[in-house]
């Protein structure tokens, strides 16, 4: 979804990670991860096999996988972990991959951008790159539920700290709100827009009550819900929330001194430039 719908997240991540010393390579022939909920519901075997094919493409190049989307992370992290641990399942999936001359070997790791920033780069190294701190701006974090399987692997799921510490390292002040760990309900939108937007409304009301000046997300679907969702809600309810939404690498990039244009803020529905202008370099 990111390359074809939100390329600004791809561009901001490439710029920020390059500055932090992470070299990213594209993998030719890559397909949709596939999306976890729908493909698993239709055929779990296909879900494993298509994901294992993608992982095998990275294995052939000897590269680990960095994901920018929670849905991709859930699929690739879970499939990689399960196939490494379960020999019988790995054999079954490899029988399918044999048809196309590929094999899942289980030699690489899959990590989200959050995990790479937190574990591999580290907060101290990131702090050294901060040129335009967030000046104690109040920031609401939205995790997105598909990150939970990986989050459980490196953080405390009941009281996660990594995302919070990362935003604190940029100079922001994280606010807590009751619906922080609930779903953005993006997947419910094609089925019932009202139900889906009801989740968004509740989140935005909670964030607003907590004094949030902006929202940071880890997932393009969550971004869509919270950014475009605000415009739809304002039409339906006549109430404007006006809380800009940033993808993690965009907020990080602004704090590192990249311009709003370089971080792709021109493409947001809820205008984010006013917030960005307050982050002047020191």
């Amino acid at each position: 979804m990111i390359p074809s719908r939100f390329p600004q997240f791809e561009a901001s991540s490439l710029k920020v990670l390059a500055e932090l010393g992470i070299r990213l390579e594209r993998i030719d022939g890559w397909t949709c991860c596939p999306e976890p909920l729908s493909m698993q519901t239709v055929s779990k075997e296909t879900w494993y096999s298509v994901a294992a094919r993608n992982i095998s493409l990275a294995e052939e190049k000897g590269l680990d996988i960095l994901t920018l989307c929670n849905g991709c992370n859930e699929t690739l992290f879970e499939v990689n972990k399960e196939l490494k641990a379960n020999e019988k399942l790995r054999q079954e999936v490899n029988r399918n991959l044999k048809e196309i001359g590929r094999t899942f070997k289980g030699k690489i790791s899959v990590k989200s951008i959050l995990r790479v920033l937190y574990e591999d780069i580290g907060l101290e190294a990131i702090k050294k790159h901060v040129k335009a701190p967030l000046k104690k701006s109040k920031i609401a974090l939205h995790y997105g539920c598909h990150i939970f399987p990986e989050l459980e692997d490196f953080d405390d799921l009941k009281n996660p700290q990594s995302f919070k510490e990362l935003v604190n390292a940029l100079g922001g002040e994280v606010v807590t709100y009751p619906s922080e760990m609930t779903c953005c309900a993006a997947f419910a939108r094609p089925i019932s827009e009202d139900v889906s937007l009801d989740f968004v409304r509740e989140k935005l009301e909670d964030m607003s009550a907590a004094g949030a000046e902006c929202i940071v997300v880890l997932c393009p679907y969550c971004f869509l819900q919270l950014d475009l969702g605000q415009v739809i809600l304002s039409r339906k309810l006549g109430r404007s929330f006006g809380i800009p939404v940033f993808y993690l690498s965009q907020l990080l990039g602004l704090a590192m001194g990249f311009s709003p244009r370089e971080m792709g803020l021109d493409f947001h529905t809820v205008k984010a430039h006013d917030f960005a202008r307050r982050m002047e370099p020191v």
Partner: protein
Amino acid sequence: MRHKSILHKIVKEGKSPAFAYEFQSLLFKEMALSGFFDNCNSLAALVVANGSTVAVTDSMLKRRQQLGLPQLSGVNQMEIKKIAEKTGIKLRLREEKR
């Protein structure tokens, strides 16, 4: 919205978010069974047919160019189709359409 109030109770009482997530997945399946499965089939069919659930539009190609990103590389669709045939997903999708 009985499900929502239960869900909020779970979250507010401090149970594991993973548990809440599981609950929400069930909620979405339960609240619109027919719509849910139709949607799942459509998305899965798009992956098999195009390699992606999102079509690449001209405006997005232009946006990629503006952002200094390279063009998107092609997908070896035959490989996905072979996997789909091997796992039987293609047949199931055809049956669903009847």
